């Protein structure tokens, strides 16, 4: 079987398996690792079903591709395998819920708070796409982003009746639904080419499947501080923070956003940055793993939180709603969403 992606240059060094966060938790017997799933297994695919459990354990952290000496498109191939194996009847419980929610509400999660305020200002120059999680779960992100954009004098609007960007569907391999969501969203974006997102999942999705070049909120805020539109007041007491590098920012939409996040933190007085031991280690929040394998995701999150505790940080900042949701399932340490944190200290430049 041809996975249609170029994986034949594998030299079997297993660097991918060594850095794979899921292998580190589940062992090679629980999750065969990128090489085995993508390179070896398709060679013997005929007549063999991959245990559907296994292929869906990948968190799509993209670490394997980063270390691969041949730069093989390993995560893309895993997604392609999921796509080929997609079968609506065989979905695991959590993934079934995602599909149902999308069919019913157009969102990947069940709305709990009712529709949030939707508005498009007449003078809007750019769209802000909130995304399902920011709107309904980690709602502080939505509020903080709106407030921050206003402080920074960004003329933005929120598209009416937007639907899920489709990132969770890509992760479970349902490309048909993804395509219909894409069309609905593109219709609603109308004349706007530029989009701001506050979720790395949405950002990645627009970049990969919508053929757009979206801006993450951090990029907009960084630009605003450059132009002296934003300034920061100090917290009452000094705070030590650590920054988690979400996989989909660090390795898919651009590592420069991480640098910009550090710049922003450094411009807040009395905020001291401490380093995590392995800041870009996956927290387990991506790839549909939280929905599909909650225990696995929890183990990964716990490992991340232990790192945070060891670093001596008061707060672990994560610029990604999925990471925040998953990390907060752990009972130790304090996690805050990055944009929400920034918003507390940001002020409009007089």
């Amino acid at each position, binding site marked *: 079987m041809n996975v249609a992606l170029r994986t034949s240059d594998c030299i079997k060094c297993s660097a991918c398996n060594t850095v794979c966060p899921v292998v580190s938790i589940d062992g090679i017997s629980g999750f065969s690792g990128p090489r085995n799933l993508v390179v070896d297994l398709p*060679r013997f695919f005929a007549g063999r079903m991959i245990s559907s459990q296994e292929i869906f354990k990948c968190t799509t952290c993209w670490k394997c591709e980063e270390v691969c000496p041949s730069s093989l498109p390993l995560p893309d191939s895993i997604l392609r395998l999921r796509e080929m194996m997609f079968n609506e009847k065989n979905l695991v419980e959590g993934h079934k819920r995602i599909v149902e929610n999308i069919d019913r509400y157009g969102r990947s999660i069940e709305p709990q708070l009712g529709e949030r305020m939707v508005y498009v200002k007449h003078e809007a120059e750019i769209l802000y796409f909130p995304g399902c999680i920011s709107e309904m779960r980690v709602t502080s992100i939505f509020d903080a982003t709106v407030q921050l954009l206003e402080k920074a004098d960004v003329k933005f609007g929120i598209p009416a009746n937007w639907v899920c960007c489709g990132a969770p569907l890509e992760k479970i391999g349902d490309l048909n639904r993804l395509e219909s969501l894409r069309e609905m969203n593109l219709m609603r974006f109308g004349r706007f080419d530029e989009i701001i997102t506050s979720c790395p999942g949405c950002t990645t999705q627009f970049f990969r499947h919508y053929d757009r070049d979206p801006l993450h909120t951090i990029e907009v805020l960084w630009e605003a501080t450059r132009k002296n539109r934003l300034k920061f007041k100090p917290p009452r007491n000094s705070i030590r923070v650590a920054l988690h590098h979400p996989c989909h920012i660090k390795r898919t939409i651009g590592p420069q956003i991480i640098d910009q996040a550090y710049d922003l933190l450094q411009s807040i007085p009395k905020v001291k940055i401490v380093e995590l031991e392995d800041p870009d280690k996956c927290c387990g929040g991506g790839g549909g793993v939280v929905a599909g394998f909650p225990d696995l995701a929890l183990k990964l999150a716990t490992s991340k939180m232990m790192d945070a505790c060891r670093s001596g940080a008061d707060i672990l900042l994560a610029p990604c709603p999925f990471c925040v949701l998953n990390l907060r399932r752990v009972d130790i340490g304090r996690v805050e969403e990055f944009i929400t944190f920034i918003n507390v200290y940001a002020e409009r430049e007089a």
Partner: protein
Amino acid sequence: MQRTEVLIIGGGITGAGIARDLACRGAELVLVEASDFSNGATGRCHGMLHSGARYAVNDPISATECAAENTILKRIANFCIEDTGGIFVSLKNDDLDYADRFLSSCKKTGVAAKEITVEEALKKEPMLSKEIVRAFEVPDASVDPFLLTLGNIESAREANAIALNYHSVREFEINEGVIDKVIVENLRNGSVEIFKPEIVVNASGAWANKIASLANLSIEMTLDKGSMVVINGRLTNGLINRLRKPSSGDIIVPSYSSSIIGTTSIRVDSPNENKATEEEVDFLIRETAMMIPDIAISRAVRAYAGIRPLCGSDRSCGREISRTFQLIDHSEQGIENFISVIGGKLTTYRLMAERVSDLVASKLGLSGSCKTAIDPLLSVNREDIHARIASSIANRVVRKSLLFANDVIQRCTEELRGMEVVCSCEEVLRGELSYWCNHQDVKELSDLMRRTRVGMGYCQGGLCIFGLLSTMIDHSDRDPMELLVRFIIERERGVEPVLFRGQLKEEFFKEHLINGVYHLDAYSRGEYEKDLER
């Protein structure tokens, strides 16, 4: 001294086929092979079961033979044949008249060729170039030459034949125009064994002249090197042939998890000149990429060459010599009980064996008739195997294990770590290796390779070598370093001509591994090799 009715020299497909045929007719026989079975041209062929179409226009005798044998082999040896079918394609600038002549010649020679539309061809083979203008469907198939040979050997053994590998013929003792004794050296321990045969059959392929010279005879033959390149991944569903006058770089054969492209035709002087060159690799990739463009961007894993022992020596170009075979009864030259067989192809091995056996039987006065066209080569009882091991693995293991599937599966399921995958390129289990390590025929690591495909994948023994060696030394008292060096040298020979892109990177990585684990760098390997030669 051992008396026997027939002594067959050469354990390639020809020798193995003759052994099976004669043994089934009730002859008492011994087969000796200087290396491992199928180590000569048999194991270095394209793995193609010809439909005859390739020879239809220029070599009608071979075409007719192939067409008939194709059907027979698919029936008697389906365990080692993938009946993939094949397509002949003409490209834009090819001679289109040839295509018409091709179709009528196929009809005349009994080859089942059928023209299909370009759209149909592209549907069957999505990777085909969009440049094709005509396409013909033929019943070509992909065959595993190692399994076919070993299948014949095992079948002969079932009929009480003795087959010995690593037994090299040293000398004939000739008495009044009759080969009286054959002196054979057992390469396992250096001992000498003497056979007293009634008839000697020389089926040593490219070495036929060397054997004949032991009886002060010479055979008119041409040695012709054909090189092939193994491309990682199955790019096609069936075989792809270029529809033109047979020339080089015409054929793509899907085989296991790879595609084999070939071949070339170069005259050589010695059977040992069987190394593919970089120029040949470049040429083959360029030529076959015209049919399947993806070949140009795929990873070349290995290149190898076989020496065709062709009949006659009067013409200069190997392609123009008929691919049919020749049977030489040396009684005309003064040796009464000596027969040589040369030429032929893998596809027609059974027919060759039948003709040789007919001659031998008439000389010996045997009454039994040939049954090889009817009796299946091996009958493996698959029941209860599937109950013991996951079916997809079982299929592969059963296919490879000839008559021993039950024992092999037992090793896999009962031994500690028997189900561990040692070679992930070809998915070979430790239990399989462990079974074959104990088999009487296995001496070197590459013997395991021919029987299980371990080390044949795209890493060319890079990662399996550790598991392979550890399994082997559990069951053998050979010097592990010697085993290792011999295996690495053998694999490197084939990788050398394809050292670019993926395979170059792979070799660098392997160099680090082998050096790191065994302190064996290229230099010390060379030194060790020199020691072995001494």
